[in-house]
């Protein structure tokens, strides 16, 4: 059993002349909520795409549960549940059918998908809408459906990109509680990219701040605050101070 759930070694991604991510080294442990912060265009989404195996790195390595993503992407991907920032789904499938497609891609049995899927839809308040087409769902409903999909195969790691965008206050509370519970009670690792710094402060154990493709700070919030002499300030002040004057 690997002691780390996510580990990256000198991870780089270049698009022709543009370097999106440079020498990213990360280690995230079981039960840890890691908040990935950074200004727009800093390289957060590119990093997430490399962690989830959607994008091939230019150089460097990604290890998920000790498994090399490039060497055995099938096994590595099976350990991840992913919630992208924009809820693009198959609009002509119903909520339950969406779970069936997703479950089948992860090799789950139809009986398991029905039982576990029903429980997840219930947990996210979608049971009444499971026979409606996804195209008719609101943004928040789609977001909650994506969480159901991400948890269906019971992954060790949950990677979420801006999880609270489009959610109403009740939905946002549900997601925040869920992330905290998954990490605390089920030892799941949460990798969350967000611009909502109050949420990061509320649920995060560690934060990583990326700027122009480079990790410029990575530690627990308390240590970082001490380091920057901002012990009684918010994470927002810390973030602005760290990123200020870096172009």
């Amino acid at each position: 059993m690997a002691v780390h759930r996510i580990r990256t070694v000198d991870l780089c991604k270049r698009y022709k002349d543009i370097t999106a991510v440079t020498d990213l080294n990360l280690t995230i442990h079981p039960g840890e909520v890691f908040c990935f912060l950074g200004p727009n265009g800093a390289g957060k989404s590119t990093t997430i795409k490399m962690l989830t195996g959607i994008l091939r790195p230019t150089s460097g390595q990604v290890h998920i549960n000790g498994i090399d993503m490039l060497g055995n992407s099938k096994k590595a991907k099976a350990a991840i549940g992913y919630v992208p920032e924009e809820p693009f789904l198959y609009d002509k499938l119903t909520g339950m059918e969406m779970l069936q497609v997703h479950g089948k891609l992860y090799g789950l049995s139809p009986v398991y998908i029905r039982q576990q899927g029903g429980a997840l839809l219930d947990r996210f308040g979608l049971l009444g809408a499971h026979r409606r087409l996804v195209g008719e769902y609101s943004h928040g409903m789609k977001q909650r459906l994506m969480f159901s999909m991400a948890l269906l195969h019971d992954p060790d790691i949950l990677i979420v990109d801006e999880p609270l965008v489009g959610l109403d206050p009740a939905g946002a509370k549900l997601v925040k509680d869920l992330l905290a519970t998954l990490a605390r009670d089920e030892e799941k690792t949460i990798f969350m990219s967000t611009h909502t710094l109050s949420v990061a402060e509320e649920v995060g154990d560690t934060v990583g701040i990326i700027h122009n493709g480079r990790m410029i700070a990575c530690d627990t919030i308390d240590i970082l605050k001490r380091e920057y002499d901002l012990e009684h300030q918010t994470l927002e002040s810390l973030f602005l101070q760290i990123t200020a004057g870096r172009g």
Partner: protein
Amino acid sequence: MGNVFSLLMVDVLALRTNVKQGLRRPSTYIFALFTLLTAWLFYSGTVAFIHMLQDKLGEAGDMATVTMFTGFLNAIFVMTIFSALVNGITALYLEGDIGFLLAYPVSKGSLFTARALRVTTVSIWFSLMMTIPFMLAFSVAVGGGGAAVVSGLISLLGLGLVATAIGLVLLVTLIRIVPPHRLRLAVTALVIVSTLVVLLLFRTFNVEDIIIKEDVSALAGFAAPPSMVAGLLPGGLIAGMLQSLVLPAVSPGLGIWLWVLAAGVLLWIAARLYRPQDGEATGSGGSKALRRPRKAEGSVPLLATGGIPWKDVLTFIRTPQYNIQGLFLLSMIAIYLFSSYMLGKQATSDVAPLLNAMLAGFVISISGVRVLLPLVNAEGRALWVILASPHPLSKMLGAKFKVMLNLCLGLAAIFTVSTMFLVPQDWATLALTAGFLILVSLVSSAGALLFGSIYADFTRLDPSLIVAGMAGILYTVVTSILTFVLALLFAYPFFVSEGVAIPNVELPLSWEAAGLLTSLATLITMVFVIISAWWAVSHMRRREW
């Protein structure tokens, strides 16, 4: 009009980007060369055919040429109306940005004009590409020189414009008068009517009477001047106009420009009738909050649930744009069955089974452009679901290929079974028909996988865009040529099976040689399938998401 240009900027910029990206790909130049070569082959083949008719039949040959040309143009005319209808539904009602644009100070007239121009471009460029070689051949054959070529090309644009205007006014009227929940039924009725019209026009294009019977009465019937109605359709008018350049006795057929004038009026009417918010009625666009929640229509209980093919079938059933593509497929089946029935009447002919198999093969190949080609693109922005899963991309493409192949094989089975009843033949010939259709199914599916993957644009879901784009034209050119090659290789085995000598060729008939040729056809097909699959997978793997 200022708004129209602003709205069109989006299309122009997107086109510029696509062209730039296309020019950077070496494959574009290979395919462009291939397309030009094919166009030249079509052109020279048509010129040779027309000259043969003129040499052998004299004046009757000229008349036969005009009839064929008229029938061809009229068929293109009807197909373009159909195409405008399909493209118009998305561009005018279902496109995701319609609701967004309505928030701008843009009149619905400007929106209609901008979208009508887009529909016109998308609907006619493919038809024009297919028609230009024939138009040039005819213009040269009638002897009109440069004037005929220029007039012919300009009048082709007129034909496209008229057809699009008719398609758009039909669409806008239909959506205004038909209750939302009956729209699918109304479109079905419209497609059935269009199919009947195509069938009628198809018969004016019937060449097998000459080939099979080779008698004067068939030729006289075929070459008879077009009826009053057919002569007034754009095809007849264009043919008349080109003839009038060299034959003063022929009326100049300027009626085509009256048609163009009428198209302007039709577009004006359509702009008045257009209500962008009617997209709500189709159940696909606009605000979700305003719609009554409904249960999803259609399910596929017999198939194993959850897989990619299952998802594709459900999506196909529930998406209006795909439904229309499916209806197109049905209309092609109807055309085949009708033609096959007519061919069956020539039961005395030994080449009837071969012609029947070729016709069925081309129907499968042509249907693929509308039904198979958009399947890869159908993943749209939801592709991340597959990319992030442990399911390899190659398996996803494999699943797509299976869906395509099963669809084609289903068609092949329908055609083979109907052949048993419509075109009498023995079991060996029937087996050859089935074998030929299986190979054509493989070629069509592999072609759709290849070009559907290379030219996939996952940000746009509209199937008509990929059909009308470079992918559509390359698919059509490549699969048509391969189908033709397969038909040539299968021709000899058909003659062997029927036990008759090949006309005008001194060649002994032997089953060994027939086996060799069918093996060669199979080998060519398998090589094409393997190359297509490899190319599609490696291209998708190289893409940056």
